């Protein structure tokens, strides 16, 4: 059974809470992650996405010099790195976010996982499972046909 630690991105973008919005924007501009996790003592306290920066830019309330804590989403839903994919998928279904910081048992940040990664990994697993199921089905059906056609002869060897 696959765990989150296998599919997570192990090098997310991280900034301290004293950083400026422009630093976050610069980090995001050069990397495809689309979000920066704000940490305090290695624990995730917030997340800032490209949309947050665009909102700040369009509303002109917060300048690029402002602190990231002003625009970040501060109630972060984290997932533990040892949790199973199916369990995480259920959390995603109820929460509806796209990106989740991954933490270890002590709550320290270890990675980032997106809804995309999880859904696609589950889909691949189910495909594999389905192929296996079909193989087993075919073997069973073949065996059943064998029994149907030869049960008369079988009955001389096995007493029903």
């Amino acid at each position: 059974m696959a765990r989150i630690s296998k599919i997570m991105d192990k090098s997310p973008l991280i900034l301290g809470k004293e950083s400026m919005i422009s630093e976050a924007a610069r980090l995001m501009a050069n990397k495809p992650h689309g979000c920066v996790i704000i940490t305090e003592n290695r624990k995730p306290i917030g997340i800032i996405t490209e949309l947050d920066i665009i909102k700040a830019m369009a509303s002109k309330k917060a300048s690029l010099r402002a602190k990231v804590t002003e625009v970040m989403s501060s109630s972060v839903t984290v997932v533990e790195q040892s949790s199973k994919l199916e369990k995480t998928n259920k959390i995603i279904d109820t929460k509806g976010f796209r990106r989740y910081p991954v933490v270890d048992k002590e709550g320290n940040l270890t990675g980032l996982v997106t809804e995309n990664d999880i859904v696609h990994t589950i889909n691949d697993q189910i495909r594999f499972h389905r192929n296996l199921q079909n193989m087993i089905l075919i073997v069973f059906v073949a065996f059943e046909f064998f029994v149907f056609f030869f049960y008369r002869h079988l009955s001389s060897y096995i007493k029903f």
Partner: protein
Amino acid sequence: MIRAKTIMTENVVTIKEAASLNAAAQLMLSKHVSTLIVMRNNKPVSILTEHDIVRGLINKKAGKVKDSMSKNFLPISPETTYNHIIKKLKDNKIKLFPVIEKDKLAGIITETDIVDATRDFTKFHQIMQEAILAIFGLVTAFFLFFLSPLGQSIRNSLA
């Protein structure tokens, strides 16, 4: 077979090439979308994502949409299959597919659309699989009973 036209978003927000990035940001926020299609002479030429806007924001020179719009623009036809899209997504790391039919914009397929389609697809297949399994099981059980010596003896006693 799932095709591009069934999973695409048809209401696409477009913006002119000469518009400012700020206008693009405002448009994105007011329409609640993460991607805009950039138009030149009423023809789609590129896409503008949140990422491109943030990039343009850092690069002070680029104040216009055309300076910071994405360079890779890979349109697909409405008849493209789901498997083909997934393959492109994994191989080329492209996450956005403008759907274009005869030079006209028909829709757009974003990451969200693909994820939703994958979820539905997976669920649908699971249900199909269970249904086939159930039918097989019933038919098998019936035949096993009908042809077995036990069934034979019941049929004999009824006759």
